[in-house]
């Protein structure tokens, strides 16, 4: 798979802002709308947990700890993934970087979450089989979490980028990369076919 570089677009970028990307400087609102889908997808785990905790009739404190305590840090990591894409540090469309991010971010989130939940519930802070085994296990569980995150990201976020592309230079770039990739792939194929045809003609 080749590497495709889209033209740099600066017309949509702000003169100054909190995040400089290779495709322009983003304002706060542009950063927010770019980070939103990753944050929402990652927060699904915490949101489901919080909603069900409420439905199960647990105390408000526990509901908040279980729901928000998990959703917020997951959302922050999900948003970070989007910004790493935006700054060009992570490539588009591949599972590896998403897995890397979650393998790093997920275990400390879960360790802190388990400890805080125990504290709020008034229990002693402990996990079965010890903290080291617990942390290693969370590293392994982070991989399927990353796969689910990446899956939803690949299937649905490009639609959001398309929606905001006219006011966000990075989204515009992502859409262009996808279109250019398709175009370049077609051209590459056509070239290959042409070369093969020429070789066959030469042999005759």
């Amino acid at each position, binding site marked *: 798979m080749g590497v495709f570089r889209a033209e740099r677009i600066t017309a949509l970028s702000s003169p100054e802002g909190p995040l400089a990307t290779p495709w322009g400087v983003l304002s706060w609102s542009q950063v927010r709308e770019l980070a939103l889908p990753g944050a929402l997808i990652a927060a699904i*785990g915490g949101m489901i947990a919080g909603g069900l905790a409420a439905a*199960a009739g647990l105390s408000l404190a526990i509901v908040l700890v279980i729901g928000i305590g998990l959703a917020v840090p997951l959302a922050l990591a999900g948003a970070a993934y989007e910004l790493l894409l935006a700054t060009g540090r992570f490539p588009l469309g591949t599972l590896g970087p998403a897995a890397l991010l979650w393998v790093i971010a997920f275990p400390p989130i879960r360790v802190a979450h388990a400890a805080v939940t125990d504290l709020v519930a008034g229990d002693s802070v402990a996990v079965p089989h010890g903290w080291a085994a617990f942390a290693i*296990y969370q590293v392994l569980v982070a991989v399927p979490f990353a796969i689910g995150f990446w899956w939803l990201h690949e*299937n649905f976020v490009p639609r959001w980028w398309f929606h905001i592309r006219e006011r966000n230079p990075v989204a515009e770039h992502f859409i262009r990369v996808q279109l250019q990739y398709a175009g370049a792939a077609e051209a590459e194929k056509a070239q290959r*076919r042409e070369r093969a045809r020429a070789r*066959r003609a030469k042999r005759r």
Partner: protein
Amino acid sequence: MAVGDTRAPGAVTLDERGVERGWKAGRLAPMPIRRLPEAPQAAHILGPAMILVALGVGLGETFLWPRLVIVFGPNIRWMFLVGVLLQTLVMLEMARYAMATGESIFFGAARIFQPIMWLFFVSAIAVYIWPGHLSTGADAFEELTGISWQLSACIGLVIIGVMFTVVKIVYNIVEAILAFLVGVLVIGSAIVAAFVGSLADLGDVLLGLVRFDYGIPHAAGTAAWFPIIVGSIAFAGPSGMQQMWYTLWLRDKGAGMGVHMPRVRGLLHAGEEETIPDTGSMFDVDDPEEWSKWQAWRKWVRVDAVLLFFGITMLVTIIFTVMAMHAADVNGEARNQLINGERDAALLAMRDAFADKATILGTLFFCFIAIVGWKASVGLFDAFARGQSDMTYYFVPGAKKLKMSYLYGIFLWGVIVFGIIIILFGPVDGPAGILNVLAFLSTFIMGAYCLTLAATNRMLLPKKLQPTWITTIILALGGIAYLGLLLYSTIKFGVTDLG
């Protein structure tokens, strides 16, 4: 995103004498030679394996295999690995026929001997008119909310029917819904596993997958367990006719020669239906350019099969098994119910086991069972209507006077109305009874389609497109194994309860 949006039959090719070129396959009309479309380059343009994952991850993964692990220990999971590996091979071979011809495997069966196709037609009705999968999810929903399972199942059925009636292209909505649900299921399963599993449980499960030396435990050969093991092998990955319907989804996705066949439209958009060719078509396998396109399609479907189908099926099953091991570990009642095989009671006990740790986890577990049931139903009702309408359109005299969308609508609403009647007035012993019959017939169908597939791909495709002999032999052995185990179980133990 569909791979190809252009859905015209496409120009035929002529030989030196100006006669239309064709490929004679079996007893039916020859297939015209048309151009093969380009395969998509990007691996992340996912194929319909995703639908197969959504259907396949169901009862076997969430109940039958976790139960066997509790009874026999994690080392018995080597059988699951063998079952899923065989299903992956079947999937690749189904794709070979569908992408090379644009025809469903049902059409392929008819090309060899039409009664084989009718056998599948009748079996599909016998197995899939029962709303078993939806009622499983609805049961869990009742546990969650207190809303009666009959009410939520009926509402679920009507929602599915309306959805598939109003949409323009049915495949697109099936793909979008299931892509979302599979994503949420994977994330949710990971979260639950993060709460309840342990490194030791995970290690045992992973190691058990490759413990081929473990063999078959003595107790597994008894009347009590042998039929259940047969049913569990059948439920490893997609069961029943799901692999056969995969050929129809590939066609609507526009994979390979499927691009020359029109897609199924919702009933309200029947008027926009394109002309449907009388047969599928074949490409010129001796044209190097066409051959290179074919290789690209095979690569695309391999990514789809291995990464998506095999990878996610294994992932979700491993997580559910770890969860079951944890449940059995902390809750003796869960262990007993799993061993006794009372599925509904066991699911309740597993819920309670998770609730011992935190109430929310029990709720979350049932929520996922509800999603598993509903997502399976979305795919199954579409698949049933799709398969039956395809066979009816091509092989029932006079059916071509109706549009494919009308036939699809008739089968869809027929199965929905029947499902509602059964839910409201059917046997009160509930979903388990339905699923046991389904498990028995699933195994029979799987044996039959393995043998059919071995025959279609060897007898109907040009030599260059045929699979290797090793593949054909594995398919044939797989078919014989499914049928042999089923017959042995029935004759030796006289038991048809496979799960």
